[in-house]
């Protein structure tokens, strides 16, 4: 293991003469960690703590005919059994806090379950063991339903409806389409122009975040009719606001404490534990803990969802990629959670760090009868980067080019136009390729060794395509969307032009914002108008796309 800082790169863009930044200062939490004193959520002790365990579906897809809790209620140590009717607002979607997507998931389902492990009741008991014993005594009368597991099966006509809010098993984007589109140039024209077409199919399986600390929360009555919550959340206010919404409780009655978490990797955003723990406390008046055991963390806790990508490249014999088409399927599992947004992030990332004049993507957020997917390290990007880079290797092999040379040849450079219609800046892919090759003693041609992210970009490469082929495939009806972004006063980008590269900084860089929409030299088609700086709209969070089911 070795690590070196190659300060000679981009040296004129940095002032390395800082007091504290750049120094190998000890972590603030290191002493707490090595003495075992860092306070994770479960390191807060409460007298009279109650334990919550959930009754979970043994079926992938089933209707609930009846839940019989009578025997469980009589079990020793059982204080309360909670079902869906006890949840004040039993329907939510995580990103509703950003007004993105429709509420589609109950905290405790009382009509049907759409994945194995979905909770339908919760036992609150004096000990964890008592809770587990009572869970075993809750009788649920199930009517099993056909289930669908493959993303491409799920979007076929007649497939079982996983999520009634989205009857085609597809999330709806912008109230208009059953997928997110990317259209840049004319990919079909690009394919006709190419010397060869290279295709591939890539599949990622679901991955568990697997933090060593499982997800959980402890709620307790606080003074003055408030609730204190110790939580392992990765997003304190997501969890607080989700709890506030599900329990119809003003947010200032909730006091959330966290911040010291035993690993997250994206698996602690979903905010399932906090509302349940607070609800338990509301119903019993006592401190309640709700924590996943490892088995639940592995199979019920939301993973990084599976992704399937189809890639098609039009390539010239010299290795230049002139067109790239993606069709992607994100397996969201039974509910939306964050997959809808992973696709937005992923689409903004296409076609990877390369300048390709014609790019096309259709990406679908698909509901299947499996554990809902959520965020994980590399969210929305890891899967498609696997596809892109495995595909680049295939392209290099087929055109007979060195794989690193192929990357450098196609790499994006400062000033290039990207497929999401913003100019590239601050790029460094080429230099990374060169340095990695050098370290591994992988020889590169002189041209590749001398290439630079700072040179040969922009100009023609910085122009929007003369023509972009668009279509209305996948148009949906029955949904509407408002565009808050356009109407919003928002925080207006500063009137000053975007800052140039920060050279020789001597003072800290103040927060600045990217000026959207650089003016193309020759706009091929009229771009949408820039955001108007009028109308105010008051939402607690700002949003890019409100969605309403008609």
């Amino acid at each position, binding site marked *: 293991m070795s690590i*070196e800082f*190659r300060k000679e790169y981009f040296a004129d863009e940095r002032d390395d003469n800082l007091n504290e930044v750049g120094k190998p200062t000890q972590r603030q939490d290191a002493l707490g960690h090595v003495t075992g004193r860092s306070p994770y959520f479960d390191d807060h002790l409460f007298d009279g703590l109650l334990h919550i365990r959930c009754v979970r579906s043994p079926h992938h897809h089933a209707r609930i005919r009846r839940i019989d809790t009578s025997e469980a209620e009589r079990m020793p140590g059982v204080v309360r059994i909670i079902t869906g009717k006890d949840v004040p607002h039993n329907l939510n979607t995580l990103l509703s806090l950003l007004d993105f997507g429709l509420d589609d998931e109950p905290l405790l389902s009382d009509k049907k379950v759409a994945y194995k492990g979905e909770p339908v009741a919760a036992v609150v008991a004096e000990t964890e063991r008592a809770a587990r014993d009572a869970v075993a005594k809750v009788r649920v009368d199930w009517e099993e339903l056909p289930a669908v597991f493959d993303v491409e099966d799920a979007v076929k006509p007649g497939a079982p409806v996983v999520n009634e809010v989205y009857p085609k098993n597809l999330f709806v984007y912008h109230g208009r389409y059953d997928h997110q589109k990317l*259209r840049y140039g004319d990919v079909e024209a690009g394919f006709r122009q190419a010397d060869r077409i290279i295709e591939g199919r890539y599949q990622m399986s679901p991955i568990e975040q697997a933090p060593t600390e499982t997800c959980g929360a402890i709620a307790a009555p606080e003074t003055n009719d408030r609730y204190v919550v110790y939580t392992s959340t990765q997003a304190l206010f997501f969890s607080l606001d989700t709890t506030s919404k599900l329990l119809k409780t003003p947010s200032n009655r909730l006091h*959330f404490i966290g911040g010291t978490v035993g690993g997250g990797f994206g698996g602690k955003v979903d905010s399932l534990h906090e509302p349940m723990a607070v609800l338990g406390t509301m119903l019993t008046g006592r401190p309640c803990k709700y924590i996943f055991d490892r088995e639940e963390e592995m199979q019920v806790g939301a993973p990084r969802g*599976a992704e399937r990508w189809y890639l098609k490249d039009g390539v010239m014999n010299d290795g230049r990629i002139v067109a790239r088409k993606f069709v992607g399927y994100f397996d969201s599992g039974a509910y939306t959670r964050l997959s809808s947004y992973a696709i937005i992030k992923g689409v903004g990332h296409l076609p990877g760090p390369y300048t390709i004049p014609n790019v096309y993507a259709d990406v679908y957020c698909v509901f299947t009868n499996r554990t809902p997917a959520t965020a994980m390290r590399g969210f929305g990007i890891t899967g498609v980067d696997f596809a892109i880079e495995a595909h680049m290797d295939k392209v290099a092999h087929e055109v007979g080019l060195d794989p690193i040379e192929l990357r450098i040849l196609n790499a994006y450079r400062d000033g290039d136009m990207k497929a999401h219609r913003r100019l590239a800046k601050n790029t460094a892919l080429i230099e990374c390729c060169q340095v990695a090759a050098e370290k591994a003693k992988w020889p590169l041609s002189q041209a590749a060794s001398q290439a630079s992210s700072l040179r040969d970009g922009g100009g023609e490469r910085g122009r929007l395509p003369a023509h972009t082929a668009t279509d209305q495939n996948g148009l949906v009806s029955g949904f509407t969307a408002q565009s808050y972004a356009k109407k919003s006063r928002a925080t207006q980008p500063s009137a000053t032009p975007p800052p140039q590269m920060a050279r020789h900084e001597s003072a*800290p860089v103040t927060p600045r914002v990217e000026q959207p*929409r650089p003016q193309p030299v020759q706009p091929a088609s009229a771009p949408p108008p820039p955001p108007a700086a009028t109308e105010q709209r008051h939402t607690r*969070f700002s949003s890019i796309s409100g969605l309403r089911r008609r």
Partner: protein
Amino acid sequence: MAIHRGRGFASINYPIGMNLGGDPSQALVHSNPGGKFMVALSSIDLGQGMKSVTRQIAAETLGVPVEDVYVDTADSDTGPHCMGSFASRGTHRVGNAVIQAAQEARSVMLEAAAEELEVDPADLVTDGKGNIHVKGAPSKSITTAEACGAAQFKQGRTVSGRGIFLIPLSEVDADTGEMTPVSCFAHAALIVDVDVDDETGEIDVIQMNSAYELGRALNPRLVEQQLVGGAWMGMSHAAWETTEPYYPERSHGPLDFNTYLMPGPGDIAPHNIAILERPAPDGPFGGKGPGEMCANPVLPAMVNAVFNAVGVRIDELPITPEKVLRGIRANGGAQPQGRRG
């Protein structure tokens, strides 16, 4: 039996932060009368070093020693709003909010010092060691503790500051996907060497060489932590992990760490890392965020290395011995592609 060595390459970039909802984060900074500063956040430290990197950013901006700063997170009663710790947003978004808050607090501290020294605050500088002095005249000086004490007991000033980072809302165009995805990108290129056993399909990772560009390395040791651990996770994603080993068939899902496979301490390989720092124009001191992207290049580099070793394209992750063996069988044997480098 034969063991085949293969070498695979991948390069990636990574968007920092999320492009939904403006991605706001806030920070509050204040000092006590002794010149010790508290940074109040509601951001989460899940091991990535949020408390530590924001502490250094605050110290640098305030111009005080890092020991004089403590980061308190996360308490919803005292810490101002933050979206959360995900999407590589922490260092960038929260760091920027901390800079803004610390700048405001610093300016009050300098005003207090100026009043005590009877000079113009614009002429004052900090030495980062706990002193404030007149530019070019180090003897005309006051400690930060004295300045903060005077502010609170004599002058009636709060040495405090508020900060927020927010990106203007950006529409995503439904028809073209036009958007302002994020504000900056980190980069990486990685070469991995693997050995493939052509009778069992088993893979050993032999070595990794990599270059990561992640804006300014705000703390080189924290960066190292992320990159070393992230490459391990990348290996793990490539060839070990999944909750559904027969996806999309929903069976045989692992329930514990014995059957949810991850590389053990005996599976890790030497990793030689080079770090490049091209400061992000809008990043805190040019920092980006290495936490997520560091795992990404390993996945494709591993499948590309397997192809180089035995001529088998693994297009479905994870790369199990079974998939490799099936590929070798389908090709009628291992087809090494020739050494690189």
